[in-house]
């Protein structure tokens, strides 16, 4: 049910119009950070205020919403934001990536490939990729304007000099459409290749920093690297303990104090879907194993 005391999707129509203008501009210039008038949302900065404002601006009555936090549909942040939009819009919600038309995410891209027509909204803490290298906003804007991105490689150089490989594991810097350097929000670098030529529309909202940027469908996204140290994604020593997947991002779970551990898919929907389809992992419950036999 929609809460009648609030406008559809919480924000007033003027604000949503302003947000949509910013989003349109962001889509027109892939990777470029568009400033916008960020509003107070009913939760603290850092909890996804930017993503929520973008979601509020693009959500329609017939949308199906999915919200994930670290790949999971059932964590506090995801549950709260999903319930918030259900109450403010009355739209249908889902945990299935395939069924969703609009997905708000924190820290992950769903394992199930996205399709044309879907929109993925990222929550972004710090939009400026050059921030820790150049503290002055004026200077970073000039660097973007003139594509002076050499300094970004200095950070990767330091990684290799210290650790022998590029140790940047999340929020990996990418070059969008051969032009703008972009931070892809704190997704693991495992997900970075999924941004490249993705058929879905990807929107990024940073509430505290008041920036929106976007990747239109089928945009070229290239991770920065060195010729002799090419970009690589993470690998795990074993498959998912529940569904046996070898192609998904795995979380390590400590089981006891004797070194026991398991790896499970961070994407709960993907893992569940595979288990329903009959895939089994090392630690799947025995009764389901018997049922399968």
């Amino acid at each position, binding site marked *: 049910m929609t809460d009648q005391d609030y406008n559809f999707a919480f924000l007033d129509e003027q604000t949503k119009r302003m947000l949509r203008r910013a989003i349109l501009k962001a889509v027109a210039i892939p990777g470029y950070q568009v400033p916008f008038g960020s509003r107070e949302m009913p939760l603290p900065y850092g909890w996804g205020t930017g993503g929520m404002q973008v979601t509020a601006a693009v959500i329609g009555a017939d949308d199906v919403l999915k919200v994930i936090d670290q790949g999971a549909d059932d964590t506090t942040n995801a549950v709260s934001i999903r319930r918030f939009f259900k109450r403010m819009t009355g739209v249908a919600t889902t945990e299935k990536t395939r069924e969703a038309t609009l997905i708000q995410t924190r820290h992950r891209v769903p394992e199930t490939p996205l399709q044309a027509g879907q929109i993925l909204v990222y929550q972004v803490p710090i939009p400026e990729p050059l921030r820790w290298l150049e503290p002055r906003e004026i200077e970073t804007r000039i660097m973007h304007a003139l594509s002076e991105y050499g300094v970004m490689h200095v950070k990767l150089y330091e990684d290799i000099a210290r650790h022998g490989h590029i140790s940047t594991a999340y929020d990996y810097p990418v070059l969008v459409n051969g032009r703008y350097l972009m931070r892809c929000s704190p997704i693991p670098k495992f997900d970075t290749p999924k941004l490249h030529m993705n058929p879905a529309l990807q929107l990024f909202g940073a509430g505290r920093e008041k920036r929106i940027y976007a990747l239109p469908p089928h945009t070229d996204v290239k991770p920065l690297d*060195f010729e002799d140290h090419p970009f690589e994604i993470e690998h795990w020593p074993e498959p998912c303990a529940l569904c046996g997947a070898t192609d998904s991002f795995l979380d390590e779970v400590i089981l006891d104090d004797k070194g026991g551990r398991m790896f499970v898919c961070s994407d709960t929907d993907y893992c569940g879907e595979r288990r329903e389809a009959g895939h089994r992992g090392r630690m799947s419950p025995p009764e389901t194993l018997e049922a399968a036999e």
Partner: protein
Amino acid sequence: MNTIEMPLLNVEGIEKSFGRQPACRDVSLELWPGEVLGIVGESGSGKSTLLKILAGRLAADAGRIHYRSAGEGIVELLGASEAQRRRLMRREWGFVQQHARDGLRMGFSAGANIGEPMMALGQRDYGSLRNTAKDWLRAVEIPEERLDDAPRTFSGGMQQRLQIARNLVTHPRIVLMDEPTGGLDVSVQARLLDLLRRLVHEHNVAVILVTHDLGVARLLADRLMVMRRGQVVEAGLTDQLLDDPQHAYTQLLVSSVLGV
């Protein structure tokens, strides 16, 4: 020979004032390939202001700077777009600051500091970046094993030498130096001067050297310009000018150097 017949840099009529206080008044100079031009004068004479204008870090009120670039013909720098100016600076110029910490990234390793200008020019091969950085550390007499140490763990003299390596690694045609030996003790200064003189001649770069130290100027500079209250009062060959100063102010300057 014909490239020698034209100056690398032709500066005409630079004017700059801070409010009612003039800092540069009608300053003109020419810089030829491979030469070291010293600009001397007391504090507040406008020499650092002039250097900042040449480097594009400060806007001049009037004047023209014609630079004969390697890749883009003759460019008038004050009227050029910021993109073009910054591109030329990156490819063909260097700037050695008085305080090394202003010209270095103190939190990153020495290797990254030397590698950064190369990475800015599009060099993307880690192995060769590292080898070049090693070569340059050796060239500026810093032990190779300090390659991965941050410059904040270096002594003042090492920091300054690292800054020089970082500026020369891209083989610039012009290097601007603002008091490169300021703040260093005398023996370190002498070593740095030797090094600078050797590198400048080896790599055939043109240098504009701003200093208040006539000893430094004598050792490094081929030609000298004396500035006072924003104006050039005397210019000429270094030895000539220091041995036989004509202008009253230059005479004062030369006579006030302490002998040992």
